[in-house]
Structure formats: structure tokens, C-alpha cells
């Protein structure tokens, strides 16, 4: 597709602006970790062993449970009408940001939470039970939150893979041969799907290892998870502590690599044993038990959590063990602080616009073989990257500036806009462009007048995805913003340590509302825009 080395070079500029400054930043941030004294200090740091243990429990257990949940649900109900219905629910649930989900889950599971309130009349409790159901020392509640949230993501990925014609046809053929659903999954589907799920799984694990916002809300405090420690050390004014943070963030990266190695080994073992598990002619057409309605808790908890946020944002007096607020009031909404909302709105709008524009230019003129580099932020733990960004911003004196915060979001948004657009862009009918060029249009004007308008649906989707990703950013906003920029995400996490659940619920709900509105707009706008064009409807 590329014709001219100069356009090639120019097309990489918007993308390079996002990525290039991070590289020296990574060097500045992580080079102190080259000193062996830093590693000795880390080894002797009293919080480190327990923090590492909590991180391992929450990230590994969370990712494994998410995978197991998604796999079990898929085996139970694919293919069925229910499976296709789930897709719409997942689209809604996936737009619930991690921090808001954690806050809502806290409202549900805490000893004074809604679950305990529901049980209180049965158990005769007048005070909350002595549960250790949130912020537990092992990070189990954090693992549970990650498991539920990430299982939706993995289900979404599975849906995309299973939606491919080739896979769907194999299921049909195998069923017509009389094989049972579970038999087909084991013999035909998993061997194909597992390798293709490797990258989504890596993304899930990377997220679990370096998540800070959820860990602050649901994770333990004495000591916190390694990611939270790294974040505290890196933002410490003392250079020794910063070096400690750099070293510990490398540990997160090593953990991911190690987990990847273990997964590769497991895959080899699985492949060798596969021969023995191929069906030998017996049909086991037993349907999975119908009473096992796994999708109800797995997806229902998402709606319950959002409902609890809504209820708390409207609650008047509401003390344990009351199941419902004594009265509903709009006070919390009227006195709400809207500044984080506006900050989030402009940040996310600007970030998604820049990234979609950069992605379009890249896809049209850029060197496609380097796409993998742009995907890296998806599967690398965020902490070392954010530390690199911060170091670069400090050198450029852009920390605490609006431009710096916006830039810090771009690196996280860009891979998602690329991921959303690349399929549709490659699938575009090249003949349309050829015709446009033949009619005398230059390449740019052909894109502007033919290609991009025809791609308005995926472009709108990419804008919405980019917007949602920017809304959910916690670490980049905190680091680059130096505390001066409060978004709904940073505000919700900061308030989660405070006392007023109503104020917290309002911010968390705003955090849910922004991406939802973006996705709704992305669905409706192309429709409206093409109301006079029959072929585009």
C-alpha cells in the first residue's frame, strides 16, 4: 500500500509522538534498578514478601478463575439462542470501568454491605458480622473482582472467535455426527481456540499484576499488593524509594514472562496428551445439566453492582441492617462535584480523537508490519510504562500540565483504537478506492470522500472504545497529572477511602455513564448520519 518513503515517514509521526518519548523515559525510570544494592534493599524491605504473595494470589487466581468461568459458560451454552443474547449484555457490562465495579462490589460484599444486610434478618444480626470479605490479607476479594470482570472480557473474545464461520461450521458438522457438546469442545474447539486465546489471557494477567485502582478499593492495606507498593515508591520524593519502585516494577514484568513460560509448557503437555482424548467413536450426547445457570451469577453481579451504585447515590439515611434506604433523595446529585466529569470528558474526547486520527493515518500509509509494537501496552504491565512516561514528562517539564496528562493517555488508548479498526480497514473493498482514484481523486481525498465515510461505523466504534479506555485510566492520570487533574476515576478511588458512600457512588456512576453514553452515541450516530443514504443504512 505504501508508495513514497516520505509519506511513510510522515504517517509514523503521530504514532511516534505517542511512543518515542517513553523509551528514554523507561531508561531514566528503570536504570537505577541496574544497581544490585537496590535489589538487596528490595529483598530486605519488610513489606515486600507479603506484598508479592498477595499480588500472586490475586493476579493468578483472578486470571485463572476468569478463564475457567468463561470456558465453563461457553461449554455450557454455546451454541444456543442464549449465547447470542449474552452478547448484548456483555457489551453493556464491558463498559463498566474496573474502578466503578470494584466500588460496587465493595458495597455488595463488605461486612456492612448489601449481602450481609440481606442475610441479617435470617441470622438475627443487628451489627455487621465479623467477615473479612473485603480488603482481606490474601487478596481473595480482589481476585474475585478480577475474575468476574475479566471473565466478561474473555467471553467477549470467545464470542468473536466462535463467531467465525469456519469454527461455527465445525460445531455443526460434529453435532450432526451425533457427538455431545462437551465432547466437541474437548476434541475440536479447545485445541483451536486455546492458542488464539493466549494473547487475551496475557492481557488479563498483565492487568491483574499491575492493577492499582481496584487494589486500593478491595485489596489489603498491611501490606498492599506489589503494584500499589510500586506506585507509592515511584511517586516518593526520595530517589532511593524511586529506585526500589523501578526494580519492583521489573519484578511485575518478570512475573508475567514467567507465567507465559509456564503456560507454554502446559500447552506442550496438553498437545502431547491430546491424542489420547480424541473420541474413539462413542457418542456421549448428554446435554450439560440445565439447572446449571452459570450465566445468571456471572453476569447478574454486574447489574447488581451498578444498581447498588445507583441506589447509594440516591440514598438518604441508610444504616446497617436496613436493606433499603430510609428515603430517596437527590441531594448527593445536586451537591455533586462535576469538575472531574468535565475533566474526564475533554481528556477522553481529545485522546480518542487523536488516537483514531493517528490510527487511520497509520493504517492507510504507515508500515503495517510494526503493528505488534503498538499492541505492546496491552500485554505489558502498565506500571513500568507509566513510570517511563512520568520520567519523560519530568524531563520535558510537562508534568502537571494538561498536555502531559493527555499524552500519557494516548499510549494506552492507541492499541485499542488500532485493534478496533484494523479488521474493518483490511476488509475494505479495494475496488472502491481504485474507482475513486480512477475518477481522478488523490489518495487523501479518496480516503476523505469515499473510504472513511464508508468506514464510519468502525470509526465511531473506535472513538467510543478509545473514549472508554481513556475514562478508565487511573495511573497515567495520577502520575502525569501530579494530583492536579481529577477525573471521575481518580476521584472515585480517592473517595473510596473516605466515608460518604453517596458521594463515592455518584462519581462511580458517572464513571459508568461516560463510556456507556459514548457507546450509545457510536451506535446511533452512523445511523443518523446515513439516514439519506440507502446503501449505508
Amino acid at each position, binding site marked *: 500500500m505504501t508508495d513514497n518513503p516520505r509519506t511513510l515517514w510522515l504517517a509514523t509521526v503521530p504514532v511516534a509522538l505517542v511512543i518515542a518519548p517513553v523509551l528514554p523515559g523507561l531508561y531514566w525510570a528503570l536504570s537505577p534498578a541496574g544497581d544490585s544494592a537496590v535489589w538487596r534493599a528490595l529483598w530486605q524491605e*519488610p*513489606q515486600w514478601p*507479603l506484598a508479592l504473595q498477595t499480588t500472586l494470589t490475586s493476579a493468578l487466581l483472578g486470571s485463572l478463575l476468569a478463564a475457567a468461568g468463561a470456558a465453563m459458560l461457553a461449554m455450557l451454552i454455546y451454541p444456543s439462542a442464549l449465547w447470542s443474547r449474552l452478547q448484548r449484555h456483555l457489551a453493556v457490562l464491558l463498559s463498566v470501568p474496573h474502578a466503578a465495579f470494584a466500588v460496587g462490589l465493595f458495597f455488595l460484599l463488605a*461486612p*456492612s454491605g448489601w449481602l450481609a444486610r440481606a442475610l441479617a434478618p435470617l441470622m438475627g444480626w*443487628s*451489627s*455487621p458480622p*465479623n467477615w*473479612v470479605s473485603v*480488603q482481606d*490479607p490474601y487478596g481473595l476479594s480482589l481476585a474475585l473482582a478480577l475474575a468476574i470482570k475479566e471473565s466478561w472480557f474473555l467471553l467477549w473474545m470467545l464470542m468473536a472467535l466462535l463467531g467465525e464461520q469456519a469454527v461455527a461450521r465445525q460445531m455443526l458438522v460434529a453435532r450432526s455426527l451425533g457427538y455431545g457438546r462437551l465432547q466437541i469442545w474437548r476434541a475440536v474447539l479447545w485445541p483451536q481456540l486455546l492458542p488464539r486465546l493466549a494473547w487475551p489471557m496475557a492481557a488479563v494477567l498483565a492487568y491483574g499484576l499491575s492493577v492499582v485502582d481496584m487494589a486500593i478499593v478491595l485489596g*489489603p*492495606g*498491611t*501490606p498492599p499488593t506489589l503494584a500499589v507498593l510500586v506506585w507509592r515508591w515511584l511517586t*516518593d*520524593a*526520595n530517589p532511593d524509594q524511586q529506585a526500589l519502585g523501578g526494580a519492583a516494577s521489573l519484578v511485575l514484568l518478570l512475573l508475567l514472562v514467567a507465567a507465559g513460560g509456564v503456560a507454554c509448557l502446559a500447552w506442550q503437555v496438553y498437545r502431547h496428551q491430546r491424542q489420547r482424548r480424541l473420541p474413539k467413536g462413542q457418542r456421549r450426547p448428554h446435554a450439560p445439566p440445565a439447572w446449571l445457570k452459570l450465566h445468571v451469577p456471572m453476569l447478574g453481579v454486574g447489574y447488581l453492582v451498578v444498581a447498588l451504585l445507583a441506589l447509594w447515590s440516591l*440514598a*438518604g*439515611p*441508610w*444504616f*446497617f441492617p436496613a436493606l433499603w434506604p430510609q428515603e430517596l433523595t437527590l441531594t448527593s446529585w445536586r*451537591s455533586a*462535584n462535576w469538575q472531574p466529569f468535565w475533566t474526564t470528558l475533554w481528556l477522553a474526547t481529545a485522546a480518542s480523537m487523536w488516537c483514531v486520527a493517528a490510527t487511520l493515518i497509520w493504517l492507510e500509509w504507515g508500515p503495517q508490519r510494526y503493528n505488534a509494537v503498538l499492541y505492546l501496552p496491552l500485554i505489558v504491565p502498565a506500571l513500568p510504562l507509566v513510570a517511563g512516561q512520568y520520567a519523560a514528562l519530568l524531563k520535558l517539564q510537562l508534568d*502537571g500540565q494538561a498536555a502531559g496528562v493527555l499524552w500519557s493517555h494516548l499510549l494506552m488508548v492507541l492499541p485499542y483504537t488500532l485493534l478496533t479498526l484494523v479488521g474493518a480497514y483490511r476488509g475494505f473493498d479495494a475496488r472502491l478506492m481504485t474507482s475513486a482514484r480512477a475518477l481522478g481523486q488523490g489518495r487523501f481525498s479518496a480516503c476523505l470522500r469515499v473510504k472513511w465515510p464508508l468506514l464510519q461505523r468502525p470509526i465511531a466504534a473506535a472513538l467510543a472504545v478509545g473514549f472508554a479506555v481513556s475514562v478508565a485510566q487511573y495511573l497515567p492520570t495520577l502520575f502525569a497529572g*501530579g*494530583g*492536579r487533574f*481529577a477525573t471521575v476515576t481518580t476521584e472515585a478511588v*480517592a473517595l473510596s*477511602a*473516605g*466515608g*460518604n*458512600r*453517596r*458521594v463515592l457512588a455518584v462519581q462511580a456512576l458517572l464513571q459508568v455513564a461516560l463510556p456507556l453514553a459514548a457507546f450509545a452515541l457510536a451506535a446511533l450516530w452512523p445511523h443518523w448520519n446515513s439516514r439519506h443514504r440507502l446503501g449505508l443504512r
Partner: protein
Amino acid sequence: MKKILTLPLLALAWAAQAQTPAPWQTIEAQARGQTVYFNAWGGSEATNAYIEWVAKEVKGRYGVALQHVKVTDAADVVKRVQTEVSAGRRNDGSVDLMWVNGENFRNLKNAGLLHGPWAEALPNWGAVDLNKPVRSDFSVPTDGFESPWGTAQLTFIADKKTTPTPPHSAKEWLQFAQANPARVSYPKPPDFHGTTFLKQILIELTPDRAVLQQPVSTAAFARATAPLWAFLDQLHPLQWRAGKAFPASAAEMHRMLADGELRLSLTFNPNEAANLIASHQLPPTAYSFGFTGGTIGNVHFVAIPVNAKAKAGAQVVANFLLSPQAQAHKADVAVWGDGSVLNTAKLPAALQAKFNKKAPGALTDNVPTLAEPHASWVEALESEWLKRYGTR
């Protein structure tokens, strides 16, 4: 001999003259259009809403844009200023005004990281009540490097429904924990409410209180704090989650008290319980109480870092914070309920009424005020606590 002495004295006098602050009109003129980044603890909505109100007022009155940078611990701001100055950012620091007292002020002052002296040259300084400890902060003289903002006194909160008779001393606190297992706790130090709780117990149990007013030394520390650690060793197993975990903040304790997860909470603001009842965060049966022997009280201040970018704007804000209107609004229980540093008797009668409002739930007992230990004790206490109890 005399001559030799006079020369440096003259030089000093000249230097003092050079340091004389610019006249107030000049400062106000410089301040117009400046943006003041006010790094202040953001853990209470009442406080945050009040600072928002101040921002609106100073924008309208003086054309100063006040930005509240919410911090969880003022010690982080101290470190920030330290790093900036040592990295050579001498005039365009990121902090213009900060909420501070105690050991953080001492550290800043000792390291020469504060702008000043300026506080006693503020036009509104004249109304300040000099009978309150506004010129000494945890036994460290302020010397005009910070301007008083409000007064505070450690106050406990309980719920009449579950706790008709609250503990009135450290000893009774322990007995209360025995009678109510897993229903007592305190915020995890170095959260300042948690540290204050430690200091309160220390003052009550230590053999010689006078030692606490002196800078800390290793030998004095060991002797003075031994009863405190013995007390905590007894208390922790009876606490919420067996003392292996602690609430993150006083705000979290209020929520846990409201739901009955805890029986006691604590605050630095004698009016906070009233405030929280009004906003439905505590049941109407909540009430405040103190210890019979007294509780720790102090004054909190605002200071300007030496590398602040908007020093004039920061002084204008500090001066407005001291104005009778701003102090009255702050003292209003429906707003924040923070104690005033002004001599209210000298103010017009209409304003005086605003200072003296009481609301249900606020502290009504006359609790004696105990002086803060010398600022140097705080770090020693916190690090020893973290060593003993910090990691499970």
C-alpha cells in the same frame, strides 16, 4: 568588644530591612491573575466544599484562581517541595500554599524550605486571638512562616443506641474493648488521626509528661513510650480484625461506626459528628465525647513553600482565610464547624452568633485541652509503631 559585636548586628538589621515584605497593595496587585495551587488534605467533604467556597470568593474579590490539590498526607507535600528544590526548581514549584502543622512544619522550617516571614504582616493578623497557641506549633515557634487557619481538638464519637456510657480515659478504653471485642480500632498510623490517638494514649500513660515537650532522644523515647506499647499489646488482640488490619482513615471509621461495625470513632473536629448527622452519614443518635483528663488540641496553619510560583496569590488567599467572613463561614456547623483562630469577642455581634452555633451531636462537655508533644516525637512514634505493628 562592643564594636566587634555591633557590626554583625548592623548587618543583621540591614538584612531584616531588606526582607521587609512589600506593602499589601503591591501584593494584591501582583496576586491578580495568579493561580494558587493549594495542597491540602482532601479527606473530608466538608473541608473540600469549604475550600471550593474560598476559591469562588478569592476569584471574585481578588482575581486569584485557587486550585485545591487534594493530598492524603501533608508529609508527601513536604517531600515534593524537597525534591523540587534539590532538583533546582527554585521559583516555579508546583505547590503555592499548603495546609500544615506539627512535624511537617518543623521539617520544612528547619530545612529552609519555607517562604517568609510573612504571616504576621497580613492585614487580618490583627484580629487573631494571641491567647491561642497561634505562634507555636507543637512547641516549635512559627516566627511568621505560617499563618493560623483553625483550631482542633481530638474528640471521640459513639452511638447512644449501642454505647450509652463511653470510655473516658485510656484505661476505660481498654476495658471497653474487652467488653466489646472486635468493635474498637483506630486509623493506621501514619494517618494523622491514628498518630494523634497514639499521642493521646502516650500523654495519659507516660510517667513524666514534661519530657514530651522537649525534643525527643533515644533514651527518653524508650522510657516515655514503654507504657504505650504495653497498652497497645493488650489492646490490639481485642480490636477489629484482631488488630491485624486498621481502618485507613477517620472517615472510614465514621462509616463503620454508622453501620455498627465499630463502636467508637474519632475526629479532630468537635463539630464533625453534628456535621455527619446532618448529611445522613451518622445516625441521629450519634454523639461526641472527650476524656475526663483532657484531649490533645492544636492549631493548624497554612504555609508557603520557598519555591512557590504564586507567593503573592498565596498570601492573599491566606489573608482571606483569616478574614472574619471566612472564619465565620468555616465555623458554621452546617459548613465545616472548624474552630476559629480569631478573637471573636472583638467582632460585630451579627458575626459572633455564627461562631457560637451548636448542633445536635457536637461536643458539649468541657474537655480540657492537652498540649501536643514536641514535633520531633511524631516521626519517632510513627516509625516505632510501623516497626512493631506495620506488617501484620
